[in-house]
């Protein structure tokens, strides 16, 4: 990490990169703050930890045409960048990628819910987090499901932080396969219970690097895809259509779930998309920057047995 910071400082001073985007500790220890700097002296403040919540590629759109920006990216976030590159939204030469050894990412709201007290300090100890020097919580329990089923990326980084890549174990989508065995009414009951809490604050949309549309379908009045209001039907319509737009683009980084103040298990839906595309099409979104977008291409031998 120190070596990388030295290098970033040098690059900033020599003007090779315009700025650095990363995380610095904030007043809440369970979530670090996004921080952008063009000052070489600020580079030492950056931190890499489990508590870096959002996906930094989302912020790249704010720095369009500003010059080369360096940013810290986990493997899933590198895949998100690859998707944006293959969609022509961002140029690879405008970005300086700092590869981060990933340990997963903690959902701050879920941690708050588990601890049920004000969080003053957090400390990572093996597979547990020690909160306020008193309560210990398993990391696995406060992580989005997507962190347990993440896929590998064909690495294309400019500089890499040394460190062990200890991503949580790969579970091979067993939870999704178990969920598939339920009956429709059981499934709907589960979604009713969890998604009823949705207040449609659209935090999941704002934090998503793939949601860059100038006008979102939920803001459209004609056609009115989703009516305003908090009925379960409208909430589910919103999430269904949003997930459809995520197909083959979502890299299952889990940022939406970590941003959700109601702890809705959104990554169950995104993991399901990843599972289906991998199982039936052998497609892993954002594997590299040259792969075509899933819905933008077709093969003659695509799966078609569901059509009579």
């Amino acid at each position, binding site marked *: 990490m120190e070596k990388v910071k030295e290098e970033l400082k040098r690059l900033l001073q020599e003007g090779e990169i315009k700025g650095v985007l990363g995380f610095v500790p904030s007043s809440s220890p369970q979530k670090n703050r996004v921080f952008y700097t063009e000052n070489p002296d600020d580079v030492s403040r950056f931190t890499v930890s489990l508590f870096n919540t959002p996906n930094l590629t989302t912020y790249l759109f704010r720095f369009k045409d500003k010059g080369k920006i360096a940013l810290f990216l986990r493997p899933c976030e590198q895949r998100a960048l690859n998707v944006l590159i293959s969609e022509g939204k961002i140029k690879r030469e405008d970005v300086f990628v700092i590869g981060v050894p990933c340990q997963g990412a903690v959902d701050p709201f879920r941690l708050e819910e588990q601890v049920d007290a004000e969080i003053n300090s957090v400390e990572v100890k093996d597979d547990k987090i020690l909160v306020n020097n008193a309560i210990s919580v398993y990391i696995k329990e406060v992580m989005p499901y997507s962190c347990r089923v993440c896929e590998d990326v064909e690495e294309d980084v400019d500089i890499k932080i040394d460190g062990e890549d200890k991503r949580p174990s790969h579970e091979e989508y067993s939870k999704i396969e178990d969920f598939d065995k339920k009956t*429709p009414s059981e499934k709907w009951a589960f979604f009713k219970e969890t998604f009823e809490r949705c207040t449609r604050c659209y935090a999941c949309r704002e934090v998503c690097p793939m949601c860059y549309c100038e006008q979102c*379908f939920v803001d459209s009045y004609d056609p009115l895809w989703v009516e305003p209001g908090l009925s379960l039907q409208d909430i589910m319509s919103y999430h*269904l259509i949003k997930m459809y737009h995520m197909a083959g683009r979502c890299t299952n980084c889990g940022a939406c779930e970590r941003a959700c103040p109601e702890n809705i298990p959104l990554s169950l839906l995104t993991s399901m998309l990843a599972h289906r595309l991998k199982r039936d099409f052998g497609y892993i979104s954002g594997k590299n920057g040259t792969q075509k977008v899933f819905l933008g291409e077709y093969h003659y031998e695509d799966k078609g047995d569901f059509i009579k």
Partner: protein
Amino acid sequence: MDTKDPKILSFLCNWCSYAGADLAGTSRLQYPPNVRVIRVPCSGRVNPQFIVKALRDGADGVWISGCHPGDCHYNSGNYFARRRFYIMKELIEFVGIEPERLTFSWVSASEGKKFQEMAIYVTERVKKVKDKKSPLYKEI
């Protein structure tokens, strides 16, 4: 027709399935009146969001039909549509909406008989779950 009978919204592609429906009509093949047809230029015109919107607004089932693979009037519309429908079908089933409510088919302009059979099949399928409304349906 009983008001309790299911309403099925169907999107038929202009060049194949809609012509297939025409053939079924001119051949005097009877098919259930539950099927309400919207003619679209191509199955690729059908945005899968239509499915969500239809179920949300009161359709009991949705049937989408287009040209067989390789027969598309616009060369590749149905190939793109196939991938989109796959995603939407998986999502709809995953959240617990009955899979019977959603049917896709390829019907060509010469398959009047197949159109009739499909219309009967779709109606019977939706009738199986008709005793309760779609979970996505919101009464006004």
